[in-house]
């Protein structure tokens, strides 16, 4: 029954995606076989005039040469299409007016903080419409070292915030994601539940956000948490009642536009290093890491980023024909087949030494229980390697396109004790489909969850490769969902299966969306919402 239903739903969904975005001006919702089918208006010159009336003629355009610049078919999704109009607002009121207008006219709206690739939250997909480029809203409004938060607008990039805090607040770590490129934004990362610099210790970036200001398409501007009160600082996320902010975590812009947010900041201690242990299988990697994380207090809190992977993670950063594929080469360089990095921060050298020595002792002790004890080895890093691994923001995730021409991160959450199973399954599947078995795994909140990220490196100039990637994605999604694993960045064309299994939850998501976005204009298709 399960397989049959999935197939049925997939067919319905694909019909819904591909054939039913009729461009009409009338009411934009109808029911077909129980499915809500939306229709959106294709924006015309009159709509452009309206946008110009709101933001000025320098900041709204339907010039196709300009709108084409917003395409991004890579990293997280392959289905981006050219928006019909791009608007670059500067102020909250401008956004409010744009949303009210588009809602009244049934024009789809996709907000982009300033980055483009991350989270697949950004690019416009079918049916196009208005893209809101929030890059002009790039103010770092406040950094409060005593209350330990900073307030930012959506267009603040990681590079911008890092430079600013490095200069003016050097004792505090900028609340940017680990591993995201410098032009990605703090806000984009947060609303997609991404990483912070200390996610392995304190949880996902979304948890670090205290309060936010959101403009909904119904015209309301809502402040969440303690910010709901006019004179309150953004000091308490749960504010005066049930937390509305969490509804927006992972929303990918499907509910409204977040225009301001307060995010926690943590100290940036001077005593930092990276401890690395290697092994020859993902199960030993998983089990040793869990033993360290389960300490919970002490060293577990010191290990701010705990992340690892396999040797193809190193290999696929270089062109396919200019790097050895055989493991022997990497072995000679001292790279294990699998490894785990513990990036460790402490306030004193003594604390740092204690934490790193303790990890080493636990790793030595773990050999007694390991599947492959002889392969458990400490990897001694050169100070330059340590500095390179601790550099943030960095470009570490970018060069996987160098292998051929394009890559896709297909990311999943699993319970930590199941991440090795995931890695084992996925690497085999990648090889079966002819892709290098590249996988990265990291701990969230002391191994409460694992984030597992297969990196599919392929040649995006070839249609056959694109089809193979999508088939791999579908194939593995079916398997992963049966294990109870969750897709992190849902691709509306592939991961709709996940929503099908969570019908009741989806019902309430839709109800909330209808409340704030009555004409369903925000990012249609995202989260499998109409």
């Amino acid at each position, binding site marked *: 029954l399960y397989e049959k239903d999935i197939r049925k739903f997939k067919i319905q969904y694909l019909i819904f995606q591909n054939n039913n975005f009729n461009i009409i001006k009338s009411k934009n919702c109808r029911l077909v076989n129980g499915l809500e089918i939306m229709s959106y208006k294709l924006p015309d010159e009159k709509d452009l005039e309206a946008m110009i009336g709101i933001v000025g003629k320098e900041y709204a355009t339907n010039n196709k040469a*300009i709108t084409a*610049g917003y395409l991004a078919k890579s990293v997280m999704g392959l289905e981006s299409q050219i928006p019909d109009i791009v608007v670059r607002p500067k102020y909250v009121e401008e956004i409010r007016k744009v949303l009210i207008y588009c809602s009244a006219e049934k024009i789809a709206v996709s907000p982009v903080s300033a980055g483009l690739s991350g989270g697949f939250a950004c690019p416009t997909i079918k049916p196009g419409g208005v893209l809101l480029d929030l890059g002009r809203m790039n103010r770092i409004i406040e950094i409060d070292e005593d209350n330990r938060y900073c307030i930012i607008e959506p267009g603040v990039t990681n590079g911008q915030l890092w*430079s600013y805090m490095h200069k003016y607040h050097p004792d505090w770590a900028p609340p940017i994601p680990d591993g995201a*490129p410098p032009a990605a934004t703090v806000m984009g990362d947060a609303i997609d539940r991404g990483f912070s610099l200390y996610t392995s210790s304190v949880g996902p970036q979304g948890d670090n956000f205290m309060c936010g200001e959101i403009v909904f398409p119904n015209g309301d501007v809502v402040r969440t948490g303690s910010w709901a009160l006019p004179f309150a600082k953004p000091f308490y996320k749960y504010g005066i009642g049930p937390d509305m902010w969490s509804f927006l975590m992972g929303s990918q812009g499907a509910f409204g536009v977040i225009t301001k947010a307060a995010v926690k900041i943590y100290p940036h201690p001077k005593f930092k290093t990276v401890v690395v242990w290697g092994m020859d299988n993902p199960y030993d990697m998983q089990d040793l890491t869990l033993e360290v994380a389960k300490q919970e207090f002490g060293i577990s809190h010191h290990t701010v980023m705990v992340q690892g992977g396999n040797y193809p993670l190193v290999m696929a950063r270089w062109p396919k024909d*200019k*790097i050895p594929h055989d493991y022997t080469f990497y072995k000679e360089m001292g790279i294990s087949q699998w490894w785990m990095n513990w990036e460790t921060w402490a306030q004193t050298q003594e604390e740092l030494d204690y934490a790193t020595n303790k990890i080493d002792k636990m790793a030595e002790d773990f050999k007694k229980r390991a599947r492959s004890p002889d392969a458990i080895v400490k990897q001694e890093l050169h100070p330059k390697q340590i500095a390179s691994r601790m*550099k943030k923001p960095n*470009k570490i*995730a970018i060069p996987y396109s*160098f292998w051929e021409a394009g890559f896709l991160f297909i990311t999943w959450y699993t319970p930590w004790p199941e991440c090795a199973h995931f890695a084992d399954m996925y690497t085999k599947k990648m090889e079966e489909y002819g892709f290098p078995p590249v996988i990265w795994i990291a701990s969230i909140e002391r191994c409460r969850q694992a984030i597992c990220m297969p990196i599919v490196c392929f040649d995006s100039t070839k249609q056959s490769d694109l089809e193979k990637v999508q088939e791999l994605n579908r194939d593995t999604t079916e398997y992963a969902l049966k294990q109870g694993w969750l897709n992190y960045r849902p691709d509306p064309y592939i991961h709709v299966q996940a929503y099908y299994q969570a019908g009741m939850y989806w019902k309430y998501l839709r109800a909330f969306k209808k409340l704030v976005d009555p004409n369903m204009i925000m990012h249609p298709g995202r989260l499998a919402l109409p």
Partner: protein
Amino acid sequence: MAKTGMERLQELKKDIYKCIHCKACRFAYSGEPDKEGIGEYTGKQGTVLYEGMVDACPAGIEYGWEAYWNAGKIWIARSILSGDLEFTEEVRDVILPCITCGQCSAQCENKVRTVDIIEALRAACMESGVPMIDKHELVDKLVKERNNPYGGAAGERLKWAKDAGLEKFINNKDAKIAYYVGCTASYRQVEVAIATAKLFEQLGMNFTLVADEVCCGSPFFRVGAVDTAQELMKKNLEAFKNVEMVYFSCAGCYRTFTIDYPKWMAEDEKLPFKTEHAFELVARLVEQGKIKFKPNKELKGKVVTYHDPCHTGRHFAVDMEQEMIEKSTNLMMDSRKIKEAIDAWYEVPRIILRKLEEDVGIKFKEMYRIKLNSMCCGAGGGVRAGYPEFSIKTASLRCDEANAVGADILTTECPFCWRNLSDANETYNHGMKVMGVLQMITEYNLLEILEKPSVKDFTIPSIRETMGDKPKK
């Protein structure tokens, strides 16, 4: 037979599809978040935080829309190849205001050849029948009529040499070394031409100034007028066919002869002579201890900074890198060698500047964005001719950066950069003196020859060609 722009674009398809739109290319120092800087500086063009990574794509900074930043343009190229977008005047107007400084290329972790892509895109746009913008049309017309984009008379091209008493070098048949002067130094910044030729004379070089020299074609390769550029290329190759070595004082001409000509020549053709910029020769002689500089009271204590021209800096560095990547069989092992070669290349002008500091008493102080991360002067890519306001504003941004380190003298080694920086310096009252490094040496009579250079010193392979086992062209 030469290639069309669309053929070049197709050749670059895999590069285009490598772009993941990460936008790291918007920054200088995109990989150096902790680079210590000088903090905020408020100059004539506003406030910039010189710390860690800094926005450095001039077109993106000026126009703001994603399409004007480099990544946007790469996705325009991809849309053209995929058929999602057709060439129109609107497309032309987005892809032309790019200075092709190559900052984006230097930042790219996937080594996308961004400048090649943008130039091929422009060439393909023109081939499709989209007309040139009026200002480019005018220089195209001028160069077709007069062999230079300034409209100067052919007979006036070497007037500076006659006026400076250097007539004996014109069509000097004995010489196997030529000095290619270029249009800007011939018709506008004659100081640069005079300084370079006099320096050669002082060093005892037997060189020729070729009267049949025409525009190198650089502006036309940059804006996509490839037919015009290739006509000029043919004329120059004919005019310089009897020499073994050609020296340059213009970064753009040097880049065009050395990088563009081989790229646009037929597969079986090779450049028939070696090429070198005059500053490479001077740096070599300094290193060999054959020359030094005299102390100078007027210059002593002056803060001198240096602007790396994109055409001698990044364009050569990226070209060098691409060639080494192509040759490599294990890029992970070779990557350090590539970095070392690029670092060594950027040191060449600094060898001269440090010697000037040591001997003359200037204070050489670097700006924040230098070498591979240097900010463009705004003149290249057809932008000075096509979009003069934007061009000068960009130059002024660069002058702000020089002001931020307290520079009295802003030096460079390209007459085109010199012109634009100088115009911005005057227009926005930056209060500095702008001059070429070799011009400073000649005008202040700083050169002291310790050992007379031999013919071999003038004709040995360029420093650039001996770096990283780079094969000779």
